[in-house]
């Protein structure tokens, strides 16, 4: 985002190499751990699944993935913890991010004990990652105006690698402003610095120091301090240097981009650099004004960019300087431009008054009165506008719907929930307050959470239906099992198998020719038996010796054939028996599995219980979120009301002041009139007395007094 990039004073290469080393060392850790056991490193797989979402910009789902990792894997490793912390930070879950960082530290310590081969360099890298996380956390606390938490977060940093020292230093200034924290940690020598020291390369160390001091934000802070200490010369020199030095944001590492909402757009980076220079220029002009060197301030602001974020302040200061160097025409135009262009700015309201005052002093009194009248009308119109805003705002039930700008060309389903942009300029000004802005962001977050919770609630209903269907299906299966009585059937099969096995064993032990005969052979055997019977019947009447001989030969051939095939067929039967054994074993196993599944009613009941609990929890959660929304709405409304009161007070003061100014001018006018009248009366006393008529100016003054 803005600060983060500004403080990384080392070159892009260094940061990228750091990332590379980190990933390589982590990979090496993973490989060494996976080599110890054959199991896949599921921590790494989960981390990379979350990365898939993260690199697509889907941080919500990346965080959900990490959460699922907790459920599936229990505790996450240090790298995943750090990643989770970064995701939590990006989702505004600062406390959770803080707790996860604590877990990260403990995980890191455990892993260090486990992996005794961790080098000093590896430890330095992990320390750097922790510092990146804590610095970003501090920054987020500062954005929310939570100084104490920011201070606490900073104090957890024991050592700061040199490239983050500038960021640390600045955040330290902001967190402890105007005091400074005395307990600044020592700069940790990172691998490169160690190398520099070992080779006694003083130049390299000096470069680190210069880089640290080159941070434009630190320089701006230093200039502010110098101005407060009235050391204007030194402040001027510093500001001149900042405003003339172009500044480039260095590239960020993966972890820095994870924790920070980085400015990646080139235009934004250029604009940020320009803004720093503009601010330095404005401060410099302000310091000249403070020293009453108005000519220098006038020259400085002459070339101030008109479209920058500080243009409003610059115009006012420029007009003030112009007045003081007697460039009244310029000053008048600038003041008029200022209060017309920025009608909601308190600074512009001052400009309006100044303009009227200047016209009264530099032009005629009549023109002065006219200018004051315009300014008076301007303030009345402002007060009315503020009143209208107050009325409309007090009627708003949902703050996020009040005066909201509708998102055009929305590519995302819930884009309206991402940001709230009010149309009302008053509310836009009120939202410059960080706390109010944070409350509005909170309201957006709550709406998103309620939406997610409702989606989850719908899911619980759906899950309940699935569980019911499963239960019904299971009951059907159990009923079918009871009807079929599969164990009995399997037992019967087993008995049959045993009988066959016994028979086979007997046949193998006492081989008979016809035991393993096939169908053809059996038919032949039957025919031979029939033929023997027939021969025996006809043998008394006829000579059957020839038949008997032929039958005997046939029987011999068949017996020989069957004995040849006996062993093969016995083996085949044994194999078939084994197959039957295997089939029965599979059947028994399957039957047991089905039995166990059918008996595991408790499993589905537990799931149903879980579903019911989740449903209740979600309902409670939605109720809590609704209550929280009401609280936040009330707080935001009170803050807006306070803002309205303040603005109203300010505008009324300006109106009063304008009327006083106008009264003074009118007094002067009447005095001039009186003097003129006396003058005229002395020369043409009688004539002027008779012909005296009320002047248009006096008529105007009378009207105004009447109105007041």
């Amino acid at each position, binding site marked *: 985002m803005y600060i983060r990039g500004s403080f990384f004073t080392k070159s892009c290469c260094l940061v990228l190499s750091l990332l590379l080393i980190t990933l390589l060392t982590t990979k090496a850790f993973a490989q060494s751990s996976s080599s110890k056991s054959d199991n896949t490193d599921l921590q790494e797989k989960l981390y990379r699944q979350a990365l*898939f979402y993260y690199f*697509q910009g889907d941080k919500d789902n990346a965080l959900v993935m990490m959460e699922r990792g907790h459920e599936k894997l229990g505790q996450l490793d240090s790298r995943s913890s750090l990643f989770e912390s970064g995701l939590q930070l990006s989702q505004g879950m600062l406390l959770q991010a803080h707790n996860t960082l604590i877990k990260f530290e403990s995980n890191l310590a455990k892993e260090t004990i486990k992996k005794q081969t961790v080098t000093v360099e590896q430890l330095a890298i992990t320390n750097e990652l922790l510092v990146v996380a804590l610095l970003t956390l501090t920054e987020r606390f500062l954005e*929310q105006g939570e100084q104490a938490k920011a201070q606490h977060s900073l104090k957890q940093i024991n050592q700061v690698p040199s490239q983050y020292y500038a960021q640390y230093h600045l955040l330290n200034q*902001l967190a402890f402003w105007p005091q400074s924290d005395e307990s600044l940690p020592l700069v940790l020598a990172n691998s490169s610095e160690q190398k520099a020291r070992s080779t006694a390369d003083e130049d390299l160390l000096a470069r680190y120091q210069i880089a640290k001091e080159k941070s434009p934000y630190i320089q701006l802070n230093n200039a502010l301090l110098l101005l407060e200490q009235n050391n204007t010369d030194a402040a001027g020199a510093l500001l001149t240097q900042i405003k003339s030095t172009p500044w480039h944001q260095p590239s960020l590492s993966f972890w820095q981009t994870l924790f920070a909402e980085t400015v990646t757009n080139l235009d934004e980076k250029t604009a940020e650099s320009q803004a720093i220079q503009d601010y330095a220029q404005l401060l410099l002009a302000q310091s000249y004004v403070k020293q009453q060197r108005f000519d220098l301030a006038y020259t400085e602001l002459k070339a101030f960019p008109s479209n920058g974020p500080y243009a409003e302040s610059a115009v006012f200061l420029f007009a003030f300087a112009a007045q003081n160097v007697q460039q009244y025409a310029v000053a008048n135009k600038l003041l008029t431009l200022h209060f017309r262009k920025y009608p909601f700015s308190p600074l512009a309201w001052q400009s309006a008054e100044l303009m009227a005052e200047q016209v009264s002093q530099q032009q005629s009194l009549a023109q002065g009165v006219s200018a004051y009248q315009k300014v008076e009308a301007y303030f009345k119109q402002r007060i009315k506008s503020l009143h209208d805003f107050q009325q409309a705002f007090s009627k708003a039930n949902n703050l996020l719907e009040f005066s909201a700008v509708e998102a055009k060309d929305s590519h995302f389903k819930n884009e309206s929930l991402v940001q709230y942009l009010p149309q009302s300029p008053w509310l836009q000004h009120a939202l410059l307050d960080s706390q109010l802005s*944070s409350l509005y962001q909170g309201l957006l977050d709550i709406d998103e*959470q309620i939406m997610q919770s409702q989606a989850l609630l719908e899911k619980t209903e759906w899950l309940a239906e699935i569980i019911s269907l499963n239960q019904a299906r299971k009951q059907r299966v159990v009923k079918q099992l009871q009807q079929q009585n599969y164990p009995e059937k399997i037992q019967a099969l087993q008995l049959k198998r045993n009988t066959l096995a016994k028979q086979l064993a007997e046949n193998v032990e006492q081989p008979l020719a016809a035991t393993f005969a096939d169908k053809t052979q059996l038919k032949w055997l039957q025919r031979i038996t029939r033929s023997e019977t027939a021969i025996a019947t006809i043998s008394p009447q006829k000579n059957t010796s020839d038949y008997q001989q032929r039958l005997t030969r046939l029987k011999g051939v068949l017996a020989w054939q069957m004995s040849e095939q006996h062993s093969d067929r016995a083996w085949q039967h044994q194999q078939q028996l084994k197959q039957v054994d295997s089939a029965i074993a599979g059947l028994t196993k399957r039957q047991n599995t089905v039995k166990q599944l059918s008996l595991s009613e408790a499993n589905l009941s537990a799931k149903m219980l879980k579903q019911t609990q989740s449903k209740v929890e979600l309902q409670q959660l939605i109720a809590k979120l609704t209550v929280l929304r009401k609280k936040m709405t009330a707080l935001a409304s009170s803050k807006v009301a306070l803002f309205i009161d303040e603005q109203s007070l300010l505008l009324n003061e300006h109106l009063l002041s304008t009327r006083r100014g106008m009264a003074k001018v009118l007094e002067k006018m009447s005095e001039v009139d009186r003097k003129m009248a006396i003058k005229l009366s002395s020369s043409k006393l009688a004539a002027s007395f008779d012909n005296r008529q009320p002047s248009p100016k006096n008529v105007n003054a009378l009207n105004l007094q009447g109105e007041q």
Partner: protein
Amino acid sequence: MKHGFKFLSILVLILSHCLVAQSQATAAEKEQSSSELNDELAQLKQQVLQLNRELFILEEDLLFPASTQLALFVSVDTGRFFTLDSVEVKINEREIAGFLYTDKQRTALEQGGIQKLYLGNLKLGEYQLTAIFTGTDDQGRLVKRAANYQFEKDDEAIMIELKLADDSKTYRTQVVVDEWVL
């Protein structure tokens, strides 16, 4: 640009805090209140996340029990020789998953992400998985890379990662199938 000026806003905020010393007590009270609400919101967000996690697990248990679960993942190792466009996965010649990648998704894979491509159910038994990746090579020509893998589904969940790995020796990308050991 708005981000760029936050630092200055913070500075102005802090300075204004210092200047308006009289209203510090009131401001501190409100700050505390606002801070408490923020903390409360963060806690509720965490609870929503936890419930989301629990319901996801429950859903997965119900729809894809471990005894029948099959999960397929896709990852890319550097992607120098192959720019991924789409993937098609078949099991026993039956198409079960397909995916067309956007630039963002491809980049996410090339940066180390792993995509869960498919989650489904399979009965016990032996299967043949076929994965066909379509994309372009470093010369911009349309190429296909495929892999076959035989696996047996038992009572445990099975997770298979399809890795597109660059082979610097052959300047080609290969599909490596890695079955996770749980």
